[in-house]
């Protein structure tokens, strides 16, 4: 399946040989072979989770490969840290930037390598060296500015200057234009081209297929941690790239969907919801129905989930539950508490940050949201609590040694089931599950699918957010595809195909036929 890199470039700057990488049981890369030509712009494309960022991180020493070799100029190397990679001329510019906001642009660029004498900064030398550097890169960016005040595009320039000042020969850029607007994108593209003209190699991780086609010399398409192919960008179109990204090598099995009658009552109704990252979203969810919410990372799916759950303040629009209970208007400041009371529950995207009470016991974690029913005059009724938690743990199949063990000692899959247990105890009529299978093993995934299906059989409606398109296709009755905070497409029945979801998510003008 894998084609070793060609060709047009005399020598490989970096080569990956049979590289594999897993994150806690989830395989991110599998036997990847890749050559990146010196002085080329090499793009990595693929769906969320296809492994493109992982490749970038391995090249730049952020994470080590589990297996396989990394060759730099034909010589095997092993980077222990990004610092190692930098000392060999490889720099990663990540999506989250790492500038010191209180320092000036020039000070940021030379951070750690400032010209100094006896511990004192030589300001004049600093500003002279900055102008030289900015001149070679062709940037018009004053070194005196406060870095914290820069626009994102200029911060990106700063990061590039910093990379150049460290004599970077290869720069990995992870979604460099994701946060930029039109003119800034064009400017950044010009910068990237100029870099390669002076001999720098650029590895471009990008979701934007148009950008990739415009910029890249070569494109590597990844799917499920495998390389589909590496080709010259010249002969490719958005459709040909999309088609290569489609299809799955491994097919998981999904439980049979429950039938939803056309007269099933609406349990959740969202109208014109506007909140940070979400603009004017409307949809209905019926009893017994699973609606999949698809889209790229940053499309606004999690923001929508949080807005519906009242975890964010909403700017406009309404969220109503069955029986016409309106959340946004009546419980303005009620937050998640009001949502839960009205029968709306959410499993948050980030288990660690938004879900688990790490060092508290399994029992406390599960009963947390239902203590309102498990007390008498404010005193927790411990025996009913233990019994209820026990039943629920059995229902979601959490394997814990005891209810008293700390929740963070559980495996990822069990932690996720524990959060399900917490929310199911509240007997929700609507459940929002945000990436419920992220970072859990195959067995736990299957168990979570069963759980979701069982819930719908009991008449709950589920809004399922997932970056795994296959999961959405396998479970959902209907699919909403989000792009830039809005619903770009609604698909149901035969329309629900990977091609349709992806092209709506990427905003491709024509649907790629598979």
């Amino acid at each position: 399946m894998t084609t070793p890199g060609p060709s047009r470039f005399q020598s490989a700057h970096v080569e990956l040989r049979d590289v594999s990488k897993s994150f806690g049981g989830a395989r991110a890369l599998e036997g990847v072979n890749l050559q990146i030509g010196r002085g080329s712009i090499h793009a990595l494309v693929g769906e969320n989770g296809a492994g493109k960022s992982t490749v970038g991180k391995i090249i730049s020493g952020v994470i080590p490969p589990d297996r396989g070799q990394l060759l730099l100029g034909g010589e095997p190397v092993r980077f222990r840290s990004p610092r190692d990679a930098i000392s060999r001329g490889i720099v990663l510019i990540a999506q989250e930037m790492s500038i010191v906001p209180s320092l000036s642009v020039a000070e940021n660029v030379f951070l750690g390598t400032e010209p100094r004498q006896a511990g004192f900064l030589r300001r004049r030398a600093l500003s002279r060296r900055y102008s030289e550097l900015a001149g070679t890169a062709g940037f018009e960016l004053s070194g005196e500015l406060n870095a914290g005040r820069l626009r994102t595009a200029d911060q990106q320039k700063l990061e590039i200057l910093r990379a150049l000042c460290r004599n970077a020969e290869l720069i990995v850029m992870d979604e460099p234009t994701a946060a930029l607007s039109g003119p800034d994108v064009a400017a950044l593209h010009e910068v990237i081209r100029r870099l390669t003209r002076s001999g720098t190699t650029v590895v471009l991780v990008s979701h934007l297929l148009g950008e990739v086609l415009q910029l890249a010399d070569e494109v590597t398409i990844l799917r499920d941690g495998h390389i589909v192919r590496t080709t010259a960008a010249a002969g490719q179109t958005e459709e040909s790239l999309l088609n290569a990204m489609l299809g799955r090598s491994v097919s998981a099995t999904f439980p049979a969907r429950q039938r939803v009658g056309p007269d099933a009552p609406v349990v959740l109704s969202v109208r014109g919801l506007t909140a940070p990252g979400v603009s004017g979203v409307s949809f209905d969810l019926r009893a017994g129905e699973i609606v999949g919410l698809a889209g790229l990372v940053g499309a606004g799916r999690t923001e929508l989930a949080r807005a519906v759950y009242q975890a964010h303040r909403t700017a406009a629009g309404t969220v109503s539950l069955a029986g016409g209970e309106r959340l946004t208007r009546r419980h303005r400041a009620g937050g998640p508490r009001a949502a839960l009371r009205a029968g709306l529950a959410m499993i948050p995207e980030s288990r660690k940050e938004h879900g688990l009470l790490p060092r508290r016991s399994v029992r406390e974690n599960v009963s947390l949201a239902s203590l309102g029913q498990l007390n008498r005059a404010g005193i927790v009724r411990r025996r009913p609590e233990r019994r209820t938690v026990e039943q629920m743990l059995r229902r979601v199949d959490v394997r814990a040694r005891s209810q008293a063990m700390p929740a963070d000692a559980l495996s990822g899959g069990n932690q996720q089931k524990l959060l399900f247990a917490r929310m199911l105890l509240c007997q929700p009529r609507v459940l929002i599950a945000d990436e419920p299978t992220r970072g859990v093993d195959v067995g736990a995934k299957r168990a979570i699918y069963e759980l979701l299906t069982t819930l719908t059989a009991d008449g709950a409606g589920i809004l399922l957010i997932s970056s795994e398109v296959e999961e959405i296709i396998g479970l959902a009755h209907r699919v909403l595809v989000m792009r830039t905070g809005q619903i770009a497409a609604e698909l149901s029945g035969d329309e629900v195909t990977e091609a349709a979801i992806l092209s709506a998510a990427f905003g491709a003008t024509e649907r790629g036929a598979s």
Partner: protein
Amino acid sequence: MSRPELAGTAGSPEGKAIPRQPPAELLTGLRRGGIIFPFLVLFVVLSVASGSFFTKVNLLDILDQQASTLIIAAAGTLVLIAGGIDLSVGATYALAGVIAADLTLSVPPLLAILAGVAVGLAVGLVNGVIVTVFRINSLIATLAMSFVVGGLASLVTGGNLIIAYSHPSFADLARTTFLSVNTSTWTMVIAVALIAVVLARTTAGRYMYAAGSNAEAARLAGVRVQMIKLVTFVVSGGAAALGGVIDASRVLSAQASNGETTLTFTVLAGIVVGGTSILGGEGAIWRTVVGVLFIALIGNGYDLLGLNPLYEQITLGGILLLAVGTDAWSRLRTG
């Protein structure tokens, strides 16, 4: 900058078997059982070394002296567990003491006592509002409040010692004996037991742990995190005031310089030495009781054995570092 190792020459550390690390488990075990072992050891050592240590008089005396510290520390444990910190307890203690002593000169003692405690509750409420409504870091908020409250105490006294010898009934609060134990000790036992029950058995207690363990997770689970935090500050203010009033009643006098920062830090030291995490989400009242008494025993031991009291502070500082270090280290290891 270190050069990356070439793959061909690497691999030297891989051959060595890494032994399992008992220190991590030992540390966790020490932290869980924690303070109880050093406390028992110290207790036995003092009983053997000094004839006057293990006597009813001395032990009751320790409890009586520590009554206010124990009450304040028990309430402070709630604040810490819910993810905050209260540095204003010393000043609140002083303010409540001088207000009660001052009022007792003109109104019935019971009213004076209630007024003192009410002032403490009010200070706690202000602390809580600053921290939860205005979202100011509790360390800074309560530090600032400690100056304000301390200043108010000086205003009340005009810089003088308030003497209430002429109203001995004010002393009944602390000095009445019941079953040969002072009422100050009884008050402490009741207050601490009440706080312990709230923390261990009530929904409010659970929410305190949840708020300190992961505030956002608690909020998403429907817990009113800010309300819970606010309550812990109110309880802490009330407890500090109760302590101040008890001590003023014991000596029938009060001044603005009572307590001050020393009390605040003794309270915090007791809580932390007991094993309650300064990072929130973990801890227990019994820990705090043992922690405070442990520190008291060290002081008592220095007195009884006639050691140079200068070393007492150094010992205390060392123990505090050890307690915080164990906490941080065990978190690192178990991550």
